[in-house]
């Protein structure tokens, strides 16, 4: 996971005096699922459109698969946030046309499209017009359209938007499967739970600027509230280094001061307190994001 599939350096993009992306830098490595996170209007879509050569950067450089944007279109699968399909065309015809535009010859595109439709349970709809599909079906078809040409880099902008829980699981499965096949996935979303479930590394942006960037585990650890969660059937007494104790059923959240979790665990063992579960407490990514944004705005 060392080869950079996507390199963005000091990217700036402005519209009519408004800076949508403000000196943004990040890299996406081969084979990872990279989360591009941020609230609505943070600049995610603008950054992605610049990567896709739909927008030209005002400043900075972008390298996609080692080349400038626009040179590697056929090796990228893209699911835009603003998406739709030809309503009056047949499902199979749409997929074959989009695959052809990605450089797949028509005789190859057709069986491949049919196989994908089978995979997402839309094979029976191949000869129906797109307008006959339900919203969820159209969402799946759009995702398939970004995968049908077997891309090396998959860029998905809000892929879970408007999906029911069953289809959310299906899409998550397809993303994981893509990673297993060696593809690199850039997942842009404002749904942080999805990122926590799928991503290896993340870039959190707000007002066009990077707020958090790096491996997800590390970020969560870095922002962990120096606390542990302990499950024990025994009532706990005062413990050295523990300044706060919260109990819910048989699980305690202990806030530490002056000691490490390892030192606490040693104390528990020394005192023969039965330990059924012990873990370093983490906070949801969403809370980390809110905390960091507040901190930046006060700074």
């Amino acid at each position, binding site marked *: 996971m060392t080869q950079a599939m996507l390199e963005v350096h000091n990217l700036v993009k402005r519209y*009519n005096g408004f800076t949508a992306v403000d000196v943004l830098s990040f890299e996406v490595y081969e084979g990872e699922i990279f989360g591009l996170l941020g609230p609505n209007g943070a600049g995610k879509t603008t950054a992605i*459109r610049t990567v*896709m*050569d*739909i*927008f*030209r950067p005002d400043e900075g450089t972008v390298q996609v698969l080692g080349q400038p944007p*626009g040179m590697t*279109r*056929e090796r*990228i699968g*893209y699911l*835009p946030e*603003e*998406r*739709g*399909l*030809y*309503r*009056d*065309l047949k499902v199979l015809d749409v997929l074959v*046309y*989009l695959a*052809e*535009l*990605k450089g797949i010859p028509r005789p190859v595109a057709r069986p491949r499209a049919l196989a994908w439709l089978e995979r997402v349970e839309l094979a029976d709809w191949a000869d129906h017009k797109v307008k006959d599909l339900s919203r969820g079906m159209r969402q799946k078809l*759009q995702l398939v*359209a*970004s995968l049908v040409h077997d891309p090396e880099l998959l860029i998905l902008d809000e892929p879970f938007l408007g999906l029911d829980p069953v289809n959310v699981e299906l899409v998550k499965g397809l993303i994981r499967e893509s990673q297993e096949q060696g593809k690199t996935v850039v997942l842009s979303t404002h749904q942080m739970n999805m990122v926590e479930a799928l991503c290896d590394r993340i870039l959190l942006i707000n007002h066009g600027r990077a707020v958090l960037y790096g491996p997800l585990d590390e970020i969560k650890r870095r922002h962990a509230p120096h606390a542990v969660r302990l499950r024990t059937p025994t009532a706990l007494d005062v413990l050295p280094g523990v300044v706060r104790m919260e109990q819910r059923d048989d699980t305690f959240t202990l806030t530490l001061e002056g000691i490490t979790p390892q030192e606490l665990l040693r104390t528990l063992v020394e005192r023969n307190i039965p330990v059924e579960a012990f873990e370093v407490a983490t906070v949801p990514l969403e809370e980390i994001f809110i905390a960091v944004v507040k901190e930046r705005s006060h700074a």
Partner: protein
Amino acid sequence: MRKMWIIARHEYRVNVRRAGFIIMTALVPLLGVLGLLIAVFFGGQASAFFERQFAPEPKEIGVVDHLGAFTPLLPAHQDHHYLFADEETGRAALRSDEITTLLVIPEDYIQSGQVMIFSKGSGFSAAVLEDSAGVRGFFVDHLLRDEVYPALRKRLADPIEPVLVSLEAEGQPQGGPLGTFLMIMVPYFVGILLIMTIFVSSGYLLRGVAEEKTSRVIEIILSSVTARELLAGKVLGLGALGLTQVVIWLVSAFGLSRGAVSLLGVALPLLTRSEVFILGLVYYLLGFLVYAVLMGAVGALGTTMQESQQLAGIFSLMAAIPLMLGGFMFSNPNMPLLRALSWFPLTAPTMMLLRLPMAEVPVVDVVASIVVLLISIPVLLWAGAKVFRMGLLMYGKRPSLAQVVRALREA
């Protein structure tokens, strides 16, 4: 380049199945069939039929001859002319519909030339009678019956029988004033027909782009091709569609030439003058390219189909200026205003399509208009692709003029 062909093929296949295209394409052959049926119905005498309809002659004419030069009537005129002893008797015959018109020829007719024409109702039949070849023959025959032999009298009454011979189609005379009228009108309407196909095809482009934009499919397409490839592919595919339409029309016109074309009594100069035909095709293609690129860019600017159509109306109006100048066109197809409009890229294709069949257009106009169009098209494609690219991704808000200008200035 390959992707441009894929887009062109896609656009062609999608639009050739549109109901609007099929109806429009079938309309001309259907009119041809209708013409054929009319020709059969009138037993090949259609021209004469129309001539009769346009110039009906009064059948039964009463004559009161105070001059005395018309009495007795010559045998050749006795079928439709009747002498009355006095005006009162003649008026009574007119009132009782025995005759349709009454001519009262006074004693001083030779000096004054005045003849009183009585008719029932409006003065239309009297006016027609005044200009009628039959009445001229009646007067010449009787006034010169003793001085001039009959063949010369006939010639004096109707001095020329025009036989129009085109230098390019020598030996194929085209007959009658109706033929002359149609010789001008038919190519004019063929020109209009070609112009219509330009607008219909570029209208598909406008609609296609607006649909792709409003259905949000455009960003998926732009992730696979450049805006220029997309616009060029669309122009190419829909240009082929327009050509298909014209070819079907031409083939059906040839096929039905015994019908529609011979009914009109003229061969189409667009078809018989080969240089006009070839230049017509050239202007058709160039005109299509100009308007298709414009419509593509305009289609991307609107936020809805209706808005795009309103914007496109500005350019359609510009292109329709030559059609509005039809009056000038008939009087002098080479007048300075029309020549100037032939040099302007947005009016050149339509203007030249209308001028070419109607007159010998100066070579300099042909060369200049083609050069202007050949230069304009890549410039428009370049500018159009920029506006196209900018407009496509602006949802819910139409770009301002300043934004369009900025997009054009960006490298």
